[in-house]
């Protein structure tokens, strides 16, 4: 039975690669990778590269030139409609609705919108044609919320009666700031952490549909374990986020108070070196690691990793290093830091950062709890494959309802007249079908 992994973006392929490789040797399941597309302002649209040795298909292979042109016409019409719709929105009833309408209006006028609408309609049309051609019983998505990937694909595949499973990459499990807007659409969720499971349950997903499997992408760390150096060396990982200049300066001041302690800055491998870092290094003698030096090498010589939201915090914790999470914003913490670790790990001010540094140097720092951040480590791959096997082999035997109340979703629209390519039918979303979300404030 083919198990299609559809719509994973490039940044998340590494998280599912162990699962794909394990399934290659599976007696009953055959993995097929169907890449996803993501957009970043600094580089535009990017379609993921299929991993070597894994069968791959492209959604767009199911489209002919007439269908692509049709999708492009729909994109132009949709873009124009969206602009007229947002611009003409009458004074809404609430402050929040006015904010949303203003945000929408700004959004649809961004210069990249034309290409994003095109990508959206082509993927929509391609997913529909691909589902008709391949007739998958089960597809595995990364999530059911993204406009170019999970949510769009879940809507299209659900209209074909496909059983939808989400295998959640680290990012979606770990950021509590990641909003789950609207009704959930998958039949089952494989998530990395108990905290993510709780968020899904709170959003209305049935307990039987949520499976904690850990993070397969972390399993290989077990082979890279090394003794933790004695307290003294701090590593601050840059991510191109606000506050980094201030955090680096505060850290340098805190570490500099202790003889024998030292701080190394790890630049982000894909971002230019910040100009403020050059000045700070010159003034304080701050050491900067080479941009391309692998993070695992740096962590080997480090006792404590400092970062705002980097995956390195989690990897370092699983390798036995201490961590500090500076959070200077007034808004809630974006990262899922286990409750028991937060008091010792999170620093909200320069003074608290200094306290965390002193605690680490006295041997009282803390790693993030392994059971909370990576259950089943280092056997998450095995766990994920086991659950996928159970779900895949039972999926075709029953037409289980999606996790939330069934929603009648609009089918894929076509610009062509009825009788030509595409189904051309449109269904209006049911007004009462969307599951209400419990108020928590």
């Amino acid at each position: 039975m083919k198990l299609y992994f559809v719509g994973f973006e490039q940044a998340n392929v590494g998280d599912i690669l162990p699962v794909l490789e394990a399934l290659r040797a599976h007696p009953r399941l055959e993995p097929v990778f169907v890449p996803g597309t993501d957009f970043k302002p600094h580089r535009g649209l990017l379609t993921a590269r299929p991993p070597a040795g894994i069968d791959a298909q492209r959604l767009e292979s199911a489209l002919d030139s007439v269908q692509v042109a049709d999708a492009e016409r729909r994109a132009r019409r949709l873009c124009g409609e969206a602009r007229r719709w947002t611009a003409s929105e009458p004074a809404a009833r609430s402050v929040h609705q006015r904010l949303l309408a203003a945000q929408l209006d700004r959004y649809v006028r961004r210069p990249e919108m034309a290409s994003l609408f095109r990508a959206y309609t082509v993927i929509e049309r391609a997913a529909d044609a691909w589902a008709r051609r391949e007739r998958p019983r089960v597809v595995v998505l990364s999530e059911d919320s993204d406009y170019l990937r999970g949510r769009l694909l879940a809507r299209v595949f659900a209209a074909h009666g496909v059983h939808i499973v989400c295998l959640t990459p680290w990012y979606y499990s770990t950021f509590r700031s990641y909003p789950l807007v609207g009704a959930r659409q998958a039949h089952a969720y494989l998530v990395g952490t108990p905290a993510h499971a709780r968020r899904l349950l709170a959003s209305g997903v049935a307990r039987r549909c949520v499976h904690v499997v850990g993070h397969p992408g972390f399993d290989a760390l077990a082979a890279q374990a090394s003794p933790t150096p004695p307290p003294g060396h701090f590593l601050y990982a840059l991510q191109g986020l606000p506050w980094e200049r201030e955090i680096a300066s505060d850290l340098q001041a805190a570490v500099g108070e202790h003889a024998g302690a030292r701080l190394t800055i790890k630049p982000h491998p894909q971002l230019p070196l910040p100009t403020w870092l050059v000045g700070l290094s010159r003034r304080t003698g701050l050491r900067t690691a080479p941009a391309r030096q692998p993070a695992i090498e740096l962590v080997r010589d480090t006792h404590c990793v400092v970062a705002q939201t980097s995956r390195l915090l989690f990897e370092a914790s699983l390798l036995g290093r201490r961590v500090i999470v500076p959070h200077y914003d007034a808004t809630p913490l974006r990262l899922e830091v286990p409750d028991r670790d937060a008091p010792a790990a999170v620093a909200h001010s320069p003074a608290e950062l200094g306290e965390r540094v002193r605690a680490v140097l006295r041997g009282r720092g803390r790693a993030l709890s392994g059971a909370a951040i990576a259950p089943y480590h280092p056997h998450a791959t095995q766990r994920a494959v086991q659950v996928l096997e159970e779900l895949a082999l039972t999926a075709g035997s029953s037409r289980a309802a999606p996790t939330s109340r069934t929603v009648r979703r609009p089918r894929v629209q076509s610009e062509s007249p009825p009788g030509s390519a595409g189904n051309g039918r449109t269904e209006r979303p049911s007004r009462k079908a969307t599951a209400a979300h419990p108020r928590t404030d």
Partner: protein
Amino acid sequence: MSGRRTPPRRVLLLGTLPQRRHRATPVSDPSIRLISISRRVAGQLDAAGVPHTPSQVYFHADAWTGLHNAVSQTVEALAHHRNDTPPAAWLDDWSHLLGAELCDAFYWTRVAEQVLCRERPSQVLLQRVRASDPTFAALAALRSAFEVLGSACADWRPARS
């Protein structure tokens, strides 16, 4: 009890600590209530002995859940407010992306609402910072929030003493 009402004060929302020589202005002016909008600047003001009110006094959230729910409900209400299609389907498909952009805006709107409700300021001042400042986005969100709430804002920059 004289019955005299305290005249409404101006409020100044501060994201970054002004240099020492510029701090005297808001501190010495009793008509200004200083509100710190980042935890870092709150810590620095405390260390410097400058009276201020953290923004969390007006609105505090430990988690994003309530804000996410507010975004969900708003998107739903807006989608059902209009009868057009396909925008409703498009809005649902794009709802997470919009939600991710809106959560911070909704947070600062709650702060702005409470500042206006509790302080009834005669004027709202927002610190003017460079785009590279880490509080630039928060201050911009506050400006939008106050405008949507019908309260004009003025920029504040420290005056050289």
